[in-house]
């Protein structure tokens, strides 16, 4: 029995000798500090509360110069309500890497291939029931300037098919490991809201041009924490 275990360990270590476990951490921020859900902030003179922020990260690649190496294809659901989901252990190639390339969202092939489990399980509330496809990013909250019922704004950004494919490529350059051995990527959510007039635009719940545009805006507020 022992021999079998040793053999397995050996096999395991050989096959993974070029890989190492690393941690990719997402730090959602509002006005320079880690975002707290359900806390009232003041943005451009108006109160604003974020009640939900969830999004998919997939197809992560490590980069060095022009060289990119893919991490085993995985889909991560980052959910601010679940602190554990903000740190993603990734098995990647050994060495120091200076950039990351990943998808914000779920790719079209996965979107048309049936049901999946774990982070992609439809019980996570990130799958549209009435028309197939994942919600790539879900951001909800409240502000008195929003004319919707209960002043609630809801951005459910998704869509995998042309011309409303909302998936975005995110390229994070010049990262380094922090003291805790993590690569930290910050997401300045206040900057995302600065580009939207919540008194005019507050509900997106299907694939559309605006869903693509807002996905692009959201992807632009991802950056390496300096």
């Amino acid at each position: 029995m022992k021999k079998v275990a040793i053999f397995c360990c050996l096999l395991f270590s050989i096959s993974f000798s070029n890989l190492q476990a690393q941690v990719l951490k997402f730090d959602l921020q509002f006005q320079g500090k880690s975002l707290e859900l359900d806390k009232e902030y003041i943005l451009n003179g108006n109160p604003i509360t974020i009640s939900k922020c969830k999004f998919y990260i997939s197809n992560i690649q490590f980069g060095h110069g022009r060289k990119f190496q893919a991490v085993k294809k995985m889909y991560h659901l980052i959910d601010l309500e679940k602190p554990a989901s903000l740190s993603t252990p990734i098995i990647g190639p050994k060495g120091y890497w200076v950039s990351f390339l990943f998808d914000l969202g779920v790719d079209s092939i996965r979107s048309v291939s049936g049901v999946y489990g774990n982070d992609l399980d439809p019980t996570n509330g990130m799958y549209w029931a009435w028309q197939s496809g994942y919600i790539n990013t879900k951001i909800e909250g409240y502000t008195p300037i929003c004319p919707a019922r209960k002043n609630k704004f809801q951005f459910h950004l998704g869509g995998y098919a042309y011309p409303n494919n909302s998936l975005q490529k995110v390229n994070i350059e010049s990262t380094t490991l922090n003291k805790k051995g993590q690569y930290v990527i910050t997401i300045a959510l206040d900057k995302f809201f600065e580009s939207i007039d919540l008194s005019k635009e507050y509900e997106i719940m299907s694939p559309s041009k605006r869903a693509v545009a807002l996905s692009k805006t959201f992807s632009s507020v991802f950056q390496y924490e300096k």
Partner: protein
Amino acid sequence: MKNRRILVGIVFGALVVLSAFNTVKFAKPKYFPEPVYNFTLNPISLDKIELGRKLFYDPILSKDSSISCASCHSPFNAFAHTDHDLSHGIHDSIGTRNAPSLVNLAWQKSFMWDGAINHLDVQALAPISHPGEMADDIKNVAHKLSRHQVYTKAFSNIYTDNKITGERILKVMAQFQLSLVSSNSKYDSVRRRQSSFSNQELHGYALFATHCNTCHVEPLFSSYEFANNGLAIDPTLNDYGRYKVTKKSSDSLLFKIPTLRNLKYSYPYMHDGRFDKLRDVLNHYDHGIVTSETISPILKEGISLSSKQKTDLIAFLLTLNDKEFVFNKKHSFPSIR
């Protein structure tokens, strides 16, 4: 110690053999095309089909445990909804379309009359979540099932970690629906050279080949594409079909072409159930076509049929009824265990 190991080995071996038996190959009738469904991602097993069947007939999937899948997809109607032009769900809410027949789903590329659903696995999410159908959500359904011993037991028989997840619920339900293969109509027995058409049916078959087979392609009797078949828009519904999904004007008034199998059981016809009788349908094609920009090119002039031709065509269409499928005990309400 040694004996115990041997015993463990035998038990393990037996389990492997048993599970191999339990996994079954999807039986494709020889003259059917290759299925569209990718079985490698959801290998068929008899246990999963049976669990999917249990879920299909269980109103637990709806918010107040009043509506099951079978409420609108009754086995005796070839898994369609009879007696109602528009199907109804929770609290007697009336929907906007007629529930289609669930048959030969492994060959379908998209689901719903407008193709809004792109895969059989995720199809059940739509009725489960629709406020006028089952008005629940898959997370709550998983939670409800995990509180019922019947289901915790059934799932743990299949999945060793006992978890009832959205993925598993949907995959076993897809397996039951994939098992709904209709291939034992008279037409099928003629294809298998086990019987032959009457003269009238042969005349009807010839008419079918000339006028219908472009869209209702045999042996599935649908291409599963979308088409505008010239139905006047119902101002109480204003249903523009596929346009709702793609927002393309070229898709306005296009609906999925339904199969012609089991028409005897699956009436009324069309996406809004507007025709009760097959003769009404043929009269529509004969002189009821409303032309518009997106009308199917082959229907522009209508399909001119004499009264006798209509009778012959109906005689052929009735050979597509599969009584064995409709009354198959394997598909019907599961026995309570």
